[in-house]
């Protein structure tokens, strides 16, 4: 249990990506970064584009992971998402008819296994 938090984060994102593919969604972007911030996973389900924030925790002593998606973090994600969309729509005329949603996937590492929970439409 002595992996550092960065490695843990990557591990969590991999687990989440696997889960998303398992749902039958396609992944448009992973670890999208721009000067506004980053979005862990951008997935696509029909005409619905989903921005996913992945949160990992080793213990619940500091609250459940989804609680750490604060208002401030939400604002960041929204801003990043709108930056992403402007870019895509302007250059490739993509996603113009899509609906958009923000999800949170939390990964709890308990001992050697992990538990995953998915909050659809977590914030707006």
């Amino acid at each position, binding site marked *: 249990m002595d992996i550092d938090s960065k490695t843990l984060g990557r591990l969590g994102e991999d687990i989440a990506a696997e889960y998303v593919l398992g749902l039958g969604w396609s992944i448009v972007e992973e670890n999208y970064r721009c000067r506004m911030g980053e979005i862990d996973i951008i997935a696509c389900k029909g005409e*619905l584009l989903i921005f996913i924030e992945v949160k990992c925790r080793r213990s619940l002593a500091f609250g459940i992971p989804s609680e750490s998606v604060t208002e401030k973090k939400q604002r960041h994600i929204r801003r990043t998402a709108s930056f992403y969309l402007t870019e895509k729509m302007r250059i490739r005329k993509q996603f113009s008819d899509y609906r*958009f949603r923000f999800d949170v996937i939390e990964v709890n590492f308990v001992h050697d296994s992990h538990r995953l929970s998915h909050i659809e439409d977590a914030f*707006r």
Partner: protein
Amino acid sequence: MSVSRLAKVRTGSIFGLDTQLVSVEADLAVGLPAFNLVGLPGGAVRESKERVRSAIINSGLKFPLSRITVNLSPADTHKDGSHFDLPVALAILAAANEDDLEDLHDFGILSKLSGVNELENTAFFGELSLDGSICKMDLAMAMVLGLAEKGITNMFLPAANLREVIEIPGLHFYPVSHIRELISHFADGEQIRPVTDKDWIQVYALYGENEVLTDENDKNDRGYDCEDFFDVKGQESVKRALQIAAAGRHDISLVGPPGIGKSMLAKRIIGIMPDMNELESKEVTRIHNIAGVTQGQKGGLIRKRPFRTPHHSVTQAALMGGGNRLRPGELSLAHRGVLFLDELPEFDRRTLDMLRQPLENRYIDLSRVGFKGRYPCSFLLIAAMNPCPCGYFGDPNHECICTETQRQKYFGKVSGPLHDRIDIHVSVGAVKIEDAEIGVSGVSEEENVRICSSTEEMRAGVIKADTAQRERQGDVHNAHLSVAQVKGFCRGDTLAEDLLRTAYVSFSLSMRAESKIRKVARTIADIEGHETITAEDMSEAISYNRGNNFGRSVG
């Protein structure tokens, strides 16, 4: 898929005493999900966002995943109240398409909400609870009456409010107790059956809390339950003055020592006044509803004329109306009824002087930041007071212990101009032992009736005068006649005119006093059934002008 989806439904917003028609427009646009509410929403309206979202989700629907903008138009007036929840929710659902509402099928509904947009004469109001049920709202009566005035004929309202408003004729009410019922109504599912005032029996049975409408209850509502004047012994002259006051709506002051029944007399005046007509009843109900004052438990229109007795510690705002919501004050609550000011000199002098303008105009103009409103206050003023601080000045059986200075200070509180605006002044004296029926056992029934008039007898006189006034001058009472009308209607015969001229000279009356005497004389003549004012009517009227002088020396 269209880019933007739009829907518009109607509701109302209470604004002073007025109800404004408000359009709730919802626009669902493509973009990152957001929910904006614009159009100057007040605190409770802003919070409706959260209630609407939860209510829609908890009734099993999806909250549309788009950029939602809700506008309350006209956008430049401030709106308050929780009743915007229902129209906001409906507008959003109506603007949404099948994609947004994929779970409609769970209700057995196949089409999207249609026909909401074309509803011109229909308004919606109600507060949502988080589970989607619709709560009872305040001000439902004011809302219904106000919207009906604006031409709305169909109203979707909380089922819990139905009983309160059912007796308003000419309207179709659609009681809603859960937002699901509303959705299914517009999505061609199960329909909500409209009810009208003719269905009141069923409505009372459904929502009546086991209260059966018996004769007894009806009687209470009509105001006949008022205590009888027959209980007040030996004050025949004061009762006569009160009858005249009630018949012509003349403001009256009663001056007398403590414990002789001034309050007792005043309280009984409602019983002799004619019933309110439908229009007056609606006016009064609306004012009381907006002020948050209700008479009785069961709601419905107020039939009984209001009798307001503000305590003498009343503040100016409580009397005139005010506060940031501009609630009507005691003066407006007494509209079409009686304002009884007991212990008049104990009131704050400035508060009393504020009465002057409303007494004359019979409305109050209030203006606050962002709002100006005219509140009606056509009431009958009954002022009661003692003749001096100890109460016994001029009483033959007690000695007054007040000094001249004390007395002057006491009356100084009631300003001359206010005194001048009161039509009838009477002194209330101690009751004679013969009249008091103390230790008397064998008074025969007929004799008793002869010396003590009852509410029923007095009421007959008032109604007679009321009819006479209506036939002559329409809806105006004698006390409110214009100068020209006084000239035209309040003429006496030769003897009466002679008498008035003599009085005018010897008492050095003011012009206002003269016209007041004429008006009172007209009312007396109406009660007596005289076509023109006789000398007797005139002399009685003059006596009421001179009846008490608030301790001032007679001129």
